[in-house]
């Protein structure tokens, strides 16, 4: 466990040092962005719509009972922007993209493709890790912004259509506008950048550490996804603590 964390930190440093080579790897970065968008956009849309909808369904009638149903827009606006969109999208990307990264790099490791790169004096961090980490760091926050908008829309849909809530869309979005500030959206955005780096590095590190045959690849994929999700949830708490300080 501690060895893995150390290896992730070392890989993070090596990737940081390799950042000036990003332009040379721009085609691979674009491939990663396409992969993130192509593989996850529909799923992100569906997930966000239902996240917004279920929060409205759970809390809307209770707020309405207490005569504060008009606060639903702000409640959904903040919970989606600050927590649900960054965390749920990061978990989705860890499952879809992180697992693919670990499997692809793990397979390259097992079948000596990474050794072949080294014999050609091609640094695997520059060639494999850098474009993936940069791609996910650009792609995930973009997906999170998209998810926030769709999530708010999902909440609005339930708030308007559910008779127990009975809000108009104007009431819902007015409250959302009043309560959600740019910094609240920025908080979700900043979190998603940190989560993206974590998912990218953990997945690549697990891929590079793969040993054995297909079984080893399977183990790496599992570890990449599980470790990413655990780290996302732990870091979410500490990031929230830090970002709350800036809000005061």
């Amino acid at each position, binding site marked *: 466990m501690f060895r893995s964390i150390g290896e992730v930190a070392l890989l993070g440093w090596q990737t940081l040092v390799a950042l000036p080579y990003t332009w040379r790897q721009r085609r691979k970065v674009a491939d990663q962005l396409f992969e993130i968008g192509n593989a996850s956009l529909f799923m992100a849309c569906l997930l966000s719509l239902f996240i917004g909808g279920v929060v409205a369904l759970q809390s809307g009638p209770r707020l309405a009972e207490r005569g504060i149903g008009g606060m639903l827009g702000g409640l959904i606006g903040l919970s989606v922007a600050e927590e649900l969109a960054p965390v749920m999208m990061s978990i989705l990307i860890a499952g879809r993209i992180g697992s693919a990264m670990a499997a*692809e790099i793990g397979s390259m490791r097992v*079948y*000596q*493709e990474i050794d072949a790169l080294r*014999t*050609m*004096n*091609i640094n695997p961090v520059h060639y494999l890790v850098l474009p993936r980490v940069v791609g996910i760091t650009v792609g995930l926050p973009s997906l999170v912004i998209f998810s926030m908008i769709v999530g708010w829309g999902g909440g609005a849909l339930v708030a308007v259509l559910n008779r127990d809530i009975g809000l108009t869309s104007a009431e819902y979005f007015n409250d959302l506008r009043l309560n959600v500030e740019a910094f609240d959206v920025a908080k979700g955005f900043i979190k998603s950048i940190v989560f993206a780096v974590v998912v990218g590095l953990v997945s690549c590190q697990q891929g590079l550490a793969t040993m054995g045959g297909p079984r080893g690849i399977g183990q790496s994929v599992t570890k990449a996804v599980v470790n990413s999700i655990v780290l996302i949830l732990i870091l979410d708490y500490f990031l929230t603590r830090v970002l709350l300080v800036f809000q005061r």
Partner: protein
Amino acid sequence: MSEHPQGVSVRLRGLRKSFRGVEVLRGIDLDIAAAEIFVMMGPSGSGKTVLLRHIIGLERPDAGEVLVDGKPLPEGSEPGGVRMGMVFQSAALLNSLTVSENVGLYLEEHRVHPPHIIQRIVAEKLELVGLKGAGDKMPSELSGGMKKRVAIARALVSEPQLLLYDEPTSELDPLRSVTIGREILALNRRLGVTSILVTHDRDLACGVAHRVAFMSDGLVSFVGTPAELRETTDPLIRDFLTIDFNSNRSTSEIP
């Protein structure tokens, strides 16, 4: 050997390596001259491939040193200033790239030439290994032998000073094996590339080698010319060189 070698010398001193308590290399001392074709033979599991991986820097020894061109390999996993190439036993092609992209990868990543020159060099190398027109294929569409030839083409594009081959003719038909053997010789004569081969192919070893080393149990038990190899009285080497399907000696007697 080439009169104007661009190849580099390789010197191994007291090389030892263990994996999970099993000693695979037990003190290897070897001197390989610049522009030499040096073949390593020996039973499976005798440590030949591990030795090759030490020479190119993919493994670090537990003890001893590897000097390439008189200098130790730099720390880290990548070879230093010396241009090296390796043909892996499994070919180790990048499965997500086409044949052309695999062959041109070194030139592309190191920005050695503009794209149209890279295309020309790739086409030349593919023709050399008998794969003209196969550039757009994916590795998954190739036979084992074809993959090996692509790996050889890929190793050649960097114009290496040191070229390592791990079983270069396994999975190749006899005609193609001879072609590859001749290409190893031609490269050596034309460019003076130092070539180190690991092979079980007795014809290839005796046909191309300037010197042959025989390894067993992690030790080098013989170093000499192919002629000296044929004359040796070492029973293991004699069996290795002469055993065939009609031989009376049981293969179980051979370690």
